[in-house]
């Protein structure tokens, strides 16, 4: 509930720790934070309004630009929703390639999030290590899809380009390297006494609060809720995916969950490469009219598209529910309350991996 208070510390819209503009108004009692409000409105582009009335061929590229950090999953969820509406089958090889692209995207997004956290708590060395590791993942993503960020890899009924044998070998080689480095870095994070002082017991999000705010993704999994959109995805089911979770509920747990998930992603990709089926990568199909609700697991949590299309494959109505909405809300109204200083506020805010571009669209 909105209140008028005497001490109101505004953070943002331009703040050295935030990558994106948001305005955080913290109500403080001494140095302790007793409440926080977020006012957005710096990034509202009205992308859902642009999408309405356009053919899917255009909306596909628009969907990717809802969020530049996790563009692959936006592409994937939109395309799979269209496939579900018009019942287009996906060739098995394409389904596996999709998983590989998606997991690479998750890895780079998590590495970026952990980099931001380390940078915010002023542990620049570890941050730079992680950013360097992210470049290696970006290389792999580029080798597979042809672009670094907005790659539009998936199309209805398949994927855009195949992965030749030698590329698969290069990929598995670099996965080994990435995993070796990552284990070292996550060990540094797990054992660092200074890091623990800044992270353990800070920004507690209890399980009940997380459920109330409908928190998703690593933020929820660090609070002991095992929700994961990948559990209901058919290809991930074939791969035998099991979600991870932690129960310590603090900043440290959120960052560690992300580290663990990167390692899990690496093993998922290995499994994909191992039993990558042979065959075509594009089956073809026609997009039809219909209405559906489709969700997938983005790096930050459950991403849902509500789509209604007409018989020519044009989008009539669309609403996107991005994970950051729930996570930022949980962060600002539950985690920050009781933080001991403003420095903890920025660290906690960054630990929830906020992405303002998706929140406002």
């Amino acid at each position, binding site marked *: 509930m909105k209140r008028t208070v005497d001490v109101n510390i505004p953070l943002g819209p*331009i703040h050295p720790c935030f990558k994106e503009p948001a305005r955080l108004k913290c109500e403080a009692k001494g140095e302790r934070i007793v409440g926080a409000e977020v006012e957005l409105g*710096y990034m509202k*582009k*009205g*992308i859902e309004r*642009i999408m309405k009335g356009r053919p899917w061929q255009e909306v596909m*590229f628009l969907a990717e630009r809802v969020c530049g950090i996790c563009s692959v999953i936006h592409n994937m969820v939109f395309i799979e929703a269209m496939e579900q509406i018009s019942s287009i089958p996906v060739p098995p090889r394409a389904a596996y390639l999709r998983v590989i692209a998606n997991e690479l995207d998750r890895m780079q997004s998590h590495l*970026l999030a952990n980099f931001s956290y380390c940078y915010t708590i002023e542990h620049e060395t570890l941050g*730079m290590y992680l950013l360097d590791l992210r470049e290696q993942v970006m290389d792999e993503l580029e080798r597979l899809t042809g672009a670094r960020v907005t790659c539009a890899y998936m199309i209805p009924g398949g994927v855009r380009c195949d992965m030749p044998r030698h590329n698969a070998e290069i990929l598995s080689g670099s996965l080994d390297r990435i995993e070796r480095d990552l284990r070292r870095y996550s060990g540094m994070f797990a054992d660092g006494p200074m890091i623990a002082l800044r992270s353990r017991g800070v920004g507690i999000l209890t399980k009940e609060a997380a459920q109330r705010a409908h928190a998703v993704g690593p933020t929820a999994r660090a609070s002991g809720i095992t929700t994961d959109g990948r559990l209901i995805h058919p290809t991930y089911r074939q791969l035998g995916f099991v979600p991870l979770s932690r129960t310590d509920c603090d900043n440290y747990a959120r960052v560690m969950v992300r580290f663990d998930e990167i390692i899990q992603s690496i093993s998922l990709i290995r499994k994909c490469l191992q039993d990558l089926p042979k065959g075509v990568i594009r089956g073809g199909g026609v997009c039809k009219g219909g209405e559906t609700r489709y969700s997938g697991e983005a790096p930050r949590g459950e991403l849902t598209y509500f789509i209604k299309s007409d018989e020519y494959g044009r989008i009539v109505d669309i609403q996107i529910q991005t994970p950051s909405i729930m996570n930022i809300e949980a962060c600002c109204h539950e985690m920050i309350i009781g933080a001991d200083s403003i420095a903890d506020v920025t660290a906690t805010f960054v630990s929830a991996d906020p992405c303002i571009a998706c929140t406002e669209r």
Partner: protein
Amino acid sequence: MTILQQIKNKVRARSIHVAYVDVGSCNGCDIEVLACLAPRYDIEQYGIFVHNNPREADVLLVIGAYTPGWEEKLAMVWEKIPPPKAAVAIGNCPISGCLFNRRESFVDPPVKKHIPIAAEVPGCPPRPTEILQAILLVRDAVFANWEGEHP
């Protein structure tokens, strides 16, 4: 030009502070700017320091298609930067609005209308190397001979 001015020029061109401001992007360009920090591209070896504090900055990187929330505020940020200064538009968004510049959207590109832009880097998103190159070119064009041009 006096010796002192030459020294000033030289020093100024070797210590550029960069701030970035996101005026309604998709984040794609944001993370490519962040990637410039990575040891692979290593923006700091050229004496460029990304700090995100307008009051210390020399170069302002503008990302995004100018949403209504930034009216007045972007100009305020621009005024806070002490001269010499230059603004660089990163990505298609500040140049043309990219694909957000359609009917029904809220954006108001180009950013050129609102603050003076010295250089533009097209691409959706541009590669980190291109961003780096643009900053270096702006450095040579604006800062390397500032004392000579503004006696």
